[in-house]
């Protein structure tokens, strides 16, 4: 048996290598820097530096790239314009998330528990808090997850994709469990996420095995070239494809694979939710596009039925159940599920437009949700003795925010309007191009359902706006809810708010870039 060393073109991988290298460095720093405050500063610095330089390298690569891109490792990894675009988005979201990770309240407390290993409410935890310990591993974890997501967008092999999937998932499971407040809820969320994640990974892996069984191939392009020969009637191939996609739908949060989303959103620390909402969505959408466009699109009609079903289920479940929510994070969780449906609407019919529409769409969605979660870190409960405690989760606690903090309420209203797709916000343009992609291939029933779902969804978005601006603050809320003011979260709110407005009013430039992203080195695009 001969074994040939793979030829690897390292240069296009530089952004991913920077991020993963910095993550490894961060783990080392954990061991060598003892003083918690210094360590925290160094970790924040390393993370931000690594992310910005990775972003800069990726942008430079985009600018200097001639043609569609490069095959980095045969059949395994391809860095093309499509994947670079997604990587830039993921890095952007990671930078915003890192700022939220590093933020701390006026009382000086971060979003993460000082000692993740301690049992909630135990003596060790109290001691750790008193000693001012810092759980700075979250920064390397963030970098690992980011690196995994970036890789996720570029992988072109079913088995290697599984590696990237686990690389991005495992850090997320840990980070979900590290909330400073409501520790039990956080642990529960992490456990559920882990169990369900493991289950869906198993589905994915089993699906990949079935595909291999049917085609003797693990490369996406290889499978894609064989499908027309085998045909869509082969049950092993069909079941395999459905299970592989089910694993991705799980990450994307599409119904009926969505049940983890509300619980995880509710329990996880808010910065982690912000990161997941934006970056996981981007990574999952990118991988989904790559699998569909380079590999399984040749299934045609059968695949389309699957996408239509899941898209409709996601939009309906997401919007309808969101109506009944009283917890703001759960409401956003269901909105996230609905947005998974909107993404699938764009994919339906496999139009070329979807390849350019989705990066823009996920950008608008990610900016608005990161901004909204940043606002959530500012609205907190106040305990009887006057200390500011955990974030205020119930919608009722947001009553009258407009008069107490016009800035926060105004920003939140802007993000909500963008998520609802009101014109002159980025979300409108995003929905416009996404639904336009579906219309271009005649999938108008889906687009119609999408528009109706958006209209229904507007109800619960606007309900929060009405609560914030047009309802008087009850005294109970006035006393029990405190407005925090932390510089980093405010910076994130301003940055995302301005971007949402700019992309809403002058979308042409970003849309033009997004158009250029509609390129795969191999596969359907352009053909």
């Amino acid at each position, binding site marked *: 048996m001969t074994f040939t060393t793979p030829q690897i073109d390292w240069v296009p991988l530089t952004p991913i290598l920077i991020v993963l290298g910095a993550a490894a460095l961060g783990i080392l720093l954990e061991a060598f820097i003892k003083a918690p405050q210094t360590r925290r500063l160094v970790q924040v610095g390393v993370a931000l530096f690594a992310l910005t330089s990775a972003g800069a390298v990726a942008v430079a690569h985009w600018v200097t790239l001639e043609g569609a891109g490069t095959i980095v490792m045969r059949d395994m990894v391809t860095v093309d314009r499509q994947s670079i675009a997604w990587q830039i988005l993921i890095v952007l979201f990671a930078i915003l998330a890192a700022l939220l990770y590093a933020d701390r309240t006026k009382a000086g407390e971060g979003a993460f528990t000082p000692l993740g290993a301690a049992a909630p409410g135990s003596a060790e935890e109290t001691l750790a808090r008193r000693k001012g310990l810092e759980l700075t591993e979250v920064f390397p974890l963030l970098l690992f997850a980011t690196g995994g997501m970036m890789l996720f967008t570029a992988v072109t092999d079913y088995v290697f994709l599984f590696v990237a999937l686990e690389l991005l998932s495992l850090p997320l499971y840990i980070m979900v469990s590290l909330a400073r407040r409501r520790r039990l809820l956080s642990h529960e969320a992490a456990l559920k996420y882990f169990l369900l994640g493991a289950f869906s990974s198993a589905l994915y892996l089993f699906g990949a095995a079935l595909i291999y069984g049917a085609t003797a191939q693990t490369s996406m392009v290889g499978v894609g070239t064989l499908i027309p020969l085998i045909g869509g009637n082969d049950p092993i191939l*069909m079941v395999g494809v*459905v299970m592989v996609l089910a694993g991705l739908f799980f990450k994307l949060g599409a119904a009926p694979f969505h049940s983890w989303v509300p619980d995880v959103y509710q329990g996880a620390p808010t910065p982690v939710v912000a990161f997941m909402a934006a970056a996981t969505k981007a990574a999952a959408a990118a991988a989904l596009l790559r699998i569909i466009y380079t590999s399984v699109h040749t299934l045609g009609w059968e695949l389309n039925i699957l996408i239509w079903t899941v898209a409709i289920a996601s939009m309906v479940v997401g919007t309808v159940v969101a109506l009944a929510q009283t917890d703001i994070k759960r409401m956003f969780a269901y909105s996230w599920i609905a947005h998974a449906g909107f993404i699938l609407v764009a994919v339906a019919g496999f139009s070329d437009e979807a390849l350019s529409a989705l990066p823009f769409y996920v950008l608008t969605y990610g900016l608005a949700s990161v901004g909204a979660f940043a606002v959530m870190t500012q609205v907190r409960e106040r305990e009887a003795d006057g200390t500011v405690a955990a974030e205020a989760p119930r919608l009722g606690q947001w009553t009258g925010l407009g008069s107490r903090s016009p800035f926060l309420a105004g920003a939140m209203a802007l993000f909500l309007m963008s998520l609802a797709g009101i014109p002159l916000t980025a979300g409108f343009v995003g929905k416009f191009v996404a639904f336009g992609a579906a219309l271009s291939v005649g999938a108008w029933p889906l687009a119609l359902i999408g528009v109706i779902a958006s209209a229904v969804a507007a109800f619960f978005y606007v309900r929060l706006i009405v609560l914030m601006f047009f309802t008087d603050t009850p005294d109970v809320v006035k006393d029990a809810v405190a407005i925090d003011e932390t510089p980093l979260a405010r910076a994130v709110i301003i940055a995302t708010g301005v971007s949402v407005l700019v992309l809403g009013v002058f979308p042409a430039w970003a849309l033009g870039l997004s158009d250029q992203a509609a390129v795969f080195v191999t596969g359907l695009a352009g053909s």
Partner: protein
Amino acid sequence: MLSLTWALIAVPLASALVLLLVGKRGDSWAPWAGVGASGATFVVGLGAYIELLSRDASDRSHHQHLFAWITGGELKVDAGLLVDPLSLTFVLLVSMVGTLIHVYSVAYMAEDKNRRIFFAYLNLFIAAMLLLVLADSFLLLFVGWEGVGLASYLLIGFWNYKPEYATAAKKAFVVNRIGDIGLIVAMGLMFAAFGALDFETVLGGAAGASEATLTGIGLMLLLAATGKSAQFPLQSWLGDAMAGPTPVSALIHAATMVTAGIYLIVRSAAIFNGAPTAQLVVAAVGAITLIMGAVIGMAKDDIKKALAASTMSQIGYMMLAAGLGPIGYAFAIFHLVTHGFFKAGMFLGAGSVMHAMKDQVDMRRFGALRGAMTITWVTFGVGWLAILGVPPFSGFHSKDKIIEAAFVGEGWQPWIFGGAALIGAGLTAFYMSRLFFMTFHGKARWTDDQHPHESSWLMTVPMIILAVGSAFLGLILASGDRFATWLEPVTGHVEHHDPVLSIPVIIGATLLLVALGAFAAWRLYGAREVVPVATQGSLATIAARNDLFQDQINEALYQRPGQHVTRMLVFADAAVVDGAVNKQAAGFLKWGESWRRLQTGYVRSYVGTILGGLLIVLLIVVLGGL
């Protein structure tokens, strides 16, 4: 100066913004800044005129592309300015009369504590009006069109602490909206027919379009013109618009903005030339309005409202001329220019009188003012002779041409239109002479606290300049058909047509009717004593005093039924639309509540959901594949 045309709009607009934003600090210098901005437009306009004049007649059109404005699907509109003899005529009229009125306003508004805002609005008007006439597309014209509407609304309601003034502003706004819909629909039709909105494509392609399309566009443009120019049937707002300060009435509601409708029609000549029916309607609207305005003017005792009725009537003349086709376009614009001078002059005279008489507007309380206000009397007198059409004053040259042109044609049309124009001339002579005699002659009927005096030089100088224009401009422009030749590149060359009556007969009849009208007015109001309180009068007088019941007709025909429809719609909205939506919302909420229960919190049930979902999806895929 042609390359500086953008400054014609930018300078007054910038000045308006500065004056609005600068706050009270600017109160001291605001009036002169306003005058400066307006004066700058006149200088630039004059420069452009000289430059254009040095070119060949065939080359007198300068198109300045500004920026790509709208690119949406098939609609591409660039913002650009078109300087040609027609637009430049308006630029010169607007900037010159505008500047004079700015100067006049410095004195007229000296006591008003909000004069900074007043000058900001005036500058805004100048900018919008110049944009309207310089635009190179109907869409950009529409921006200016709305801009002058906005400025007009703001200035009519400038003293909006008086509820009836605020109501007048609203009325002008609402009536104008109806006209604006016409312009919007016209643009829609143009886009459907020509796929563009710029003058070049639309007017250039008009010759190839069907007559039905052109008639539709033409009628919609006419609707727009009737709203802005206070023509029948959208004339009712102009009288109430006199609520604004008098300089505003002079500038916006006499000399410039109300003539925008004429500009629109003359600019769209290519469309109307291909739509004889639309042209006929234009002429008919003009004829009706010119008689209507004159009749209303005969009974008004409010000096400004009488002048407003006269404006309506005079614009009716222009509309009639514009409806006559190529033979009338140049004369419509010619009369527009001379009218701009003499009517603005008379409005300023009326303002001067009001200034002297403590804002009294009832002519029955005037009389014998010629002694107290000699300059006002003389300048107003020149304007009066001009509007009567007494040779050699300006109005004679322009109005007489319209009457002659109205008598050109075949069949019944020349007799109807010519007759209306002829009778209108007689009526004009009567009501304008009535106004003049009641104000300046006869016995003084002043109230005790009124001590009339001549106004300051800031007010009299603009009046004198306008009076000079009213006296000689017509003669200068008419000699050798100078004005018609100047406009020829836009309105087209016209062969001479003979009227159905010979020209000396027409001139003779006109002058005879004018003399009769003026004489009747002298007998009734000059020589006889005028009672300070109006008597009941005949049925006809009552009708005319009430604007021929236009408000009552509007109320009965549109407002009342409109209110009923609105009430019905509100009811239907609450019962049907809201009812359905609320029921649906409640249904969705219940749905959400029931599905929410699926979210049990147990991992085992979540896994069940995923697995069940996967099986269902598989089933759907397999079944769908069969």
